[in-house]
């Protein structure tokens, strides 16, 4: 064994011990529906003390943000260590102590584009689960055509004045802050007049209205901005260059959605359902063939996530190819859930049944290929940017 391999083996043993000693037994192996997720924030209430205990301990060890620098509350792990940490968590059935848009999206963008004051102010509150963020990108007229955002921020000298409307803002009603794309120059070409802004959801003039989803829940909202005053220092990066940040953040969002970021996709495995319905599966050659194909593609896709991370690690960025991860991963996840529903049969038809909330999870996966940029938009990106296909 090489030194590197030995070091990783030691890390595995250490982190596995740590999880065993610190994750309350009651949380182990619990099915991880959307209800099991700890999102944090000022409005958050834990479903039980075990969740709180687990979060507190994880914070102490930096493990809410395994790869972030320790100065902001991360654990500073290498990618190999992070992977081992996640594998050990999965092996023991330990739930992630905290999930949030701050961890998935805003954090990486601030680490790249934020100034020191912004990083020092916002990152530790994300790793400690104190502030919950939502994402204000989409508007009624700006979905796939995101650069068409019309919500505007006017420079009032000592503050910004924001007016407009966002839509599909996930968890806006439960979030403390929002990161948003706002138009700061109406005369510039549409990609060049957008800025990236942070706003406190408690600011006077911000209101939210929930929208109910087909999966029965109401996690997203319309968000209205009516003469909202925003401090000048809440602009991230350069004025009118917010599109670059928006895109950078989107690549993180897409990799997370494509790769089965546990919060959105659910950590359910096909094997679990198959095991419980084995008779049905073996008796049905169509289901069996479908299960084999799904497994083949799932294994190959997870290796592709690995390969792309290896590439990023080697300093060769993934760039527009992240659109492929989003496209492939979400379409695959929809297939997995169709398979699980078909395997479960009538056991999967209740909102809450023998397989827990399988049905709402299945419904929720249909959004995976829409949120964060639709499959069609991802294919456009691959065709135009990767394959350089012509416009005319």
């Amino acid at each position: 064994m090489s030194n590197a391999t030995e070091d990783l083996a030691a890390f595995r043993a250490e982190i596995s011990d740590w999880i065993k000693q610190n994750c309350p037994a009651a949380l182990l192996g619990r099915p991880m529906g959307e209800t099991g997720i700890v999102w944090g924030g000022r409005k958050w209430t834990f479903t039980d003390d075990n969740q709180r205990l687990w979060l507190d301990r994880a914070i102490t060890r930096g493990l809410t943000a395994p790869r972030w620098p320790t100065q902001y509350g991360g654990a500073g792990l290498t990618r190999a260590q992070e992977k081992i940490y996640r594998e050990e968590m999965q092996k023991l059935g330990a739930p992630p102590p905290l999930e949030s848009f701050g961890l998935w999206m805003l954090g990486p963008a601030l680490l790249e584009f934020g100034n020191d004051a912004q990083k020092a102010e916002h990152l530790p509150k994300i790793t400690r689960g104190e502030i919950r963020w939502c994402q204000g990108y989409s508007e009624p007229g700006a979905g796939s055509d995101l650069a068409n955002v019309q919500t505007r921020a006017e420079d009032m000298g000592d503050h910004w004045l924001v007016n407009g409307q966002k839509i599909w803002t996930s968890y806006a009603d439960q979030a403390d802050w929002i990161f948003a794309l706002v138009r700061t120059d109406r005369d510039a070409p549409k990609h060049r007049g957008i800025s990236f802004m942070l706003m406190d959801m408690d600011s006077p003039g911000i209101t939210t209205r929930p929208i109910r989803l087909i999966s029965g829940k109401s996690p997203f909202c319309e968000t209205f901005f009516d003469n909202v005053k925003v401090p000048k220092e809440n602009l991230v990066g350069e004025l009118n260059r917010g599109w670059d940040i928006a895109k950078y953040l989107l690549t993180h969002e897409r990799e997370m959605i494509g790769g089965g970021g546990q919060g959105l996709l659910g950590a359910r495995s096909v094997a679990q359902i198959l095991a419980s319905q084995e008779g049905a599966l073996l008796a049905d050659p169509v289901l069996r063939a479908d299960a084999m194909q799904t497994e083949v593609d799932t294994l190959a896709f997870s290796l592709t996530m690995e390969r792309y991370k290896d590439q990023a690690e080697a300093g060769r960025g993934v760039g527009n190819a992240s659109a492929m991860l989003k496209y492939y991963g979400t379409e695959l996840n929809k297939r997995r859930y169709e398979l699980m529903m078909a395997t479960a049969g009538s056991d999967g038809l209740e909102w809450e049944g023998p397989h827990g909330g399988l049905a709402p999870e299945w419904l929720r996966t249909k959004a995976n290929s829409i949120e964060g940029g639709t499959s069609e938009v991802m294919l456009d990106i691959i065709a135009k940017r990767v394959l350089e296909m012509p416009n005319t």
Partner: protein
Amino acid sequence: MSAPMKEMTQSLIDTEDEVMLRDAARGFLSESSPVSALRANRDAGRAYDPALWAEMAQMGWTGVLVPEVAGGADMGHRAAGILAEEMGRTLAASPYLSTAVIAASVLRQAGPGAQGALESIAAGEAIYALALDEGPKFAPKATAMQAEKHGNAFRLSGVKAFVADGATAGRVLVLARTSGSAGDDAGLTLFDIDASRAGLSREQLSTIDSRDHARLIFDGVEATGDDIIGDLDNGFAALRPGLQAGQAALAAELTGLAGGAAAITLGYLKERKQFDRTIGSFQALQHRAAHLWSEIEVTASAIANAGRVLDHTPEDAELAVSLAKARAAQTAKLAVSEAVQMHGGIGMTDAFDIGFFMKRARVGAEWLGDYGYHAAVIAAARGF
């Protein structure tokens, strides 16, 4: 994921040496063996060009899996896969898989007695074929061909239905039954015999890919204990490294083939005009091209992984190899179907190259196990 996948410390991207090997192979093959060379072979009625094979030997490719003591370059399975991928891009025909990959992987496990055979593979002198399938589908355990004991010798009788490089090979690795019955994996023995041995006749098949495939008829062919590779009745264990190496490299070839077909198609989409636009500007075709590219990317990961696992933990390679072959068969099929469709009428003509890709993809999909065979291996390994 644990066992089937590469270890944490290995990377799935090409190392600097591998990048150089790939570049060199691509440069050489596009010069010396473009698709037009396959066409010329076909029109001349020959399965491959011996001069090309000699050049491959000079570059060390025939010895890619042969130990250095036997004159090989011993570059490993990932490298062997990279070479196969590049051969797939231009459909370069040669006995590379049968000889340099399958036979070399079998013989290097066979002890000091095989040193001479390995030397002649590395030198480009020996050409091997693997005589395995007896029916239309890959099913090694179903081997029924008898090797009957006669005094100190064996007599082999039966038919091997589909033997790659079987008409040109000077030597044949043949799996036959010394005990047990069809369906058992025990009781099989692997022999390494000269193709000119009395009682062995060969019928060249005229296959769609214009390569060498033959039916081998064994009629009381004599073999002795010296011809046995590995142990009596345990030939499957002796063959396994060769099969796995061959499956991984064939999967790599198919992935290169898919990439080659996709590249030709993309070029056509950027050039052909209809309705006063390049057809590649139509979103319907853009999305099909993008989807195909995604499938090839995903398969390429399984190919790289299989090479890494064979190099580092060959005892755990089954799942990784089957994953590579299953994905590659499907991806190549998609690539060639999409390629023909997006070319329109010209894609159906013999004068245009894309048909060669379709025909080789079909043969490659069957040889050494089709999608269904390997998907079933994966399903079993994953517990359902």
